[in-house]
């Protein structure tokens, strides 16, 4: 295993490669106002991707602040001793213990709704995906550039409704908006209405992105690029987009009906009016379960890319990974009922429990193929690769703890407990966010043409990994011991584990601050990046770094597979840097 400092070596020569050209996509078109107008009206997928990246990260920040607030509130249980209240962090005014629970519910909903609808669903596809999908395909842009820009505006518009609702006092329905909470609480305010509208609008943004990606993948591949020459990230994004297009309309109609229910009390979901609340849960999870895979599939795509490039090894089982992405997309529509084991009938619960275990098959196929890829690879201990290792570790824990939740008998004990909270954070954070970070670091040079400080980034990665585990591993214990989720207070016995969890969340926060620092430092004072710092073979590395306005100088032609490290010198790199193995030796090794 060799350690390569990506900032060293032949940077100076390589940077000059695209020199003399009329700048890149980041080059300002004129003064400050011209530049702002240019960005606001751009149809360039790269700029839209970058705008998405920053808005999505801003939402992550908002959701993160809420999360820290929740952890502080849970640092100690609310106690009233001799008329003195302690442990009620959210009780700003100090006049009522009831306030703290009320506020806690709102902050919890805020955290969930923002993180799910405004951060993690659009997260990877709309930011990283938007930027690199056309580049990976060798295209000049996505199929419908204006729709792409519309997607961003719709996203911002929808998020404004959500944030507006929070600023007006928030909602305490939980991010799932279960009826009758969502039809009866805060009856005198429009806040719930705004939140519902927000999610409804955000759905359009999601559909626009998904639709665009599917058509782009079909119609804009470079000459010579067949379906099995696609990078696995593209397969992952394609599968994601299928889910986005097929599942999101259902949340649209669900929230439309919820809107009618709330405004006109039409009695479709409200049991008090003859409606069926379980129907709402079916509707909601028909969207929200597939969307779990909208969150994780692009993450898996990133892992496939990073793991191959950073171990300089052809990906093991290309077709298995590609088809498992499609299989996950398919299975995602079969298992939504496992979110409602305790509310639906026995038959439904049994069938859904059985189907739920199907998810394990394509997921395990991916994980085993990634591990097989690492075998005998030349692993670079770069930050993206460290994050991929973190992903493999955390995602496996997340996946395996899903099994007791998918089995009916154990789920009866564990449902609605901190075990569930820990499980889905291991998948959503330990899976998606960790891979998102891997992806940001992997493509950061491509985005901005600057390198980040590798040492600082590694420290950040270590802090995130350690902090995350402290925060959420403790919650598995809390859950199995009976701590229910969504409570502002708890019995004294749970305090030690809650304190550990809160301490972990601060370590996690520290890790993110380190990353924030490295990113800002890189943007303002980072070294110029090599055009292909990791020696990647996928087509985005053939463009300049950062790419120019139209991505490529000439229409690229696909001449090699995305992971043919054995036979291809990476673009912008020399054979000295990346020596090809002896052909005979390769032959002997591969049989």
């Amino acid at each position, binding site marked *: 295993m060799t350690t390569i400092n990506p900032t060293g070596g032949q940077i100076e020569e390589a940077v000059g490669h695209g020199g003399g050209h009329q700048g890149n996509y980041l080059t300002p078109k004129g003064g400050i106002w011209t530049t702002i107008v240019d960005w606001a009206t751009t149809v360039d997928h790269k700029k839209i991707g970058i705008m998405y990246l920053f808005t999505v990260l801003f939402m992550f920040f908002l959701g993160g602040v809420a999360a820290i607030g929740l952890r502080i509130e849970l640092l100690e249980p609310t106690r009233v001793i001799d008329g003195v209240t302690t442990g009620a962090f959210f009780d700003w005014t100090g006049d009522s213990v009831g306030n703290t629970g009320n506020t806690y519910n709102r902050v919890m909903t805020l955290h969930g709704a923002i993180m799910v609808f405004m951060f993690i669903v659009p997260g990877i596809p709309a930011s990283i995906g938007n930027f690199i999908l056309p580049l990976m395909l060798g295209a000049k842009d996505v199929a419908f550039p204006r729709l792409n820009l519309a997607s961003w505006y719709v996203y911002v518009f929808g998020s404004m409704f959500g944030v507006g609702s929070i600023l007006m006092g928030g909602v305490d329905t939980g991010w799932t908006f279960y009826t009758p909470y969502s039809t009866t609480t805060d009856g005198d305010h429009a806040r719930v209405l705004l939140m519902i509208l927000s999610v409804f609008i955000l759905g359009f943004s999601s559909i626009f992105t998904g639709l665009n990606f599917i058509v782009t993948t079909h119609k804009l591949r470079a000459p010579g690029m067949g379906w099995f020459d696609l990078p696995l990230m593209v397969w992952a994004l394609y599968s994601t987009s299928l889910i986005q297009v097929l599942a999101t*309309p259902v949340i649209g109609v669900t929230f439309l009906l919820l809107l009618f229910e709330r405004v006109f009390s039409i009695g479709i979901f409200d049991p008090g009016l003859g409606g069926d609340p379980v129907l709402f849960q079916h509707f909601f999870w028909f969207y929200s379960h597939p969307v779990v895979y909208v969150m994780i599939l692009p993450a898996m795509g990133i892992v496939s890319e990073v793991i191959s490039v950073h171990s300089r090894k052809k990906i093991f089982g290309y077709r298995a990974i590609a088809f498992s992405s499609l299989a996950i997309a398919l299975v995602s529509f079969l298992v939504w009922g496992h979110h409602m084991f305790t509310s639906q009938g026995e038959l439904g619960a049994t069938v859904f429990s059985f189907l739920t275990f199907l998810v394990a098959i394509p997921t395990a196929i991916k994980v085993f193929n990634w591990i097989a890829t690492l075998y005998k690879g030349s692993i670079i201990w770069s930050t993206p690769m460290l994050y991929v290792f973190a992903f493999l570790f955390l995602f496996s824990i997340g996946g395996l703890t899903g099994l007791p939740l998918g089995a009916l008998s154990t789920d009866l004990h564990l449902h609605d407990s901190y075990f569930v909270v820990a499980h889905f954070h291991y998948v959503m954070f330990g899976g998606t966010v960790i891979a998102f970070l891997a992806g940001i670091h992997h493509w950061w040079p491509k985005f901005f043409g600057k390198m980040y400080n590798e040492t600082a980034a590694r420290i950040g990665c270590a802090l995130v990994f350690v902090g995350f585990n402290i925060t959420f591993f403790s919650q598995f214990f809390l859950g199995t011991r009976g701590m229910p989720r969504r409570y502002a207070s708890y019995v004294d016995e749970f305090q030690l584990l809650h304190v550990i969890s809160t301490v972990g969340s601060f370590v996690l926060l520290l890790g993110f601050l380190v990353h924030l620092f490295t990113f800002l430092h890189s943007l303002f004072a980072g070294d110029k990046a090599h055009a292909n710092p990791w020696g990647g073979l996928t087509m985005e590395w053939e463009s300049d770094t950062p790419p120019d306005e139209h991505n490529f100088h000439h229409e690229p032609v696909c001449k090699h597979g995305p992971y043919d490290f054995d036979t291809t010198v990476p673009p912008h790199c020399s054979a000295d840097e990346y020596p090809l193995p002896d052909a005979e030796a390769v032959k002997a090794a591969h049989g």
Partner: protein
Amino acid sequence: MATITGPNQSPAGGPLELERPALERWKTHKHGHHWRNAEDEFDAAKIGIWLFLSTEILLFSGMFCAYAVFRMLYPESIAAGSQYLDPRWGGTNTVVLLISSWTMAMAIRDVQLNRQFWATVNLLITLVCAAGFLAIKFTFEYIPKWGEGKRPGTLFSYPWATHDHEHVWWSIYYAATGIHAFHVIVGMGLIAWLLYRQRIRKAYGPTHYTMMEGVGLYWHIVDLVWIFLFPLLYLVH
């Protein structure tokens, strides 16, 4: 109107190019810079539209699902509710929509053959049919029924109901047909816009009619949804 420059070559087979050729914008349509050719652009637009249609179908499937669930939960109320609707009006509306769907398909055919006059006529008929559908819906169904108190949910005030969950029936009825009517209104806007583009701007012809095709497909899906809504709401009991 004088923005068009360059040669105005008629594509092979355009029979009626004598009519004011200099203003026919479809002949000078340029495909987007990121496409290799107009063919790819057209195919991509069609895939995009079909994907959009699939989102529409899934949107309506939510209404069908709610309908089915409540039919099973409250079979009597839903059946009784269905009796309040007059299949004759529903049937008339079905016929109106089917005819509009046909004229839409004919309008596309006319544009493909560059019979601009007939394309305009067909689009106009489509538009009139759409307006007729809404007119029938409102004058003979929504307004009288709402007036009698046959309203959704807590708005319900009809005193002669026979079953306890008839308000749920009306909720489903108004939500399903309301969402459908909204699609009809949007469709009318799109068809009006097509008319403007086709007649005044002369934007569509044998070599370029992507938008006609797209709006046409959308209009057919509106028709398709009604084909299923009609028997479920009016006929099944």
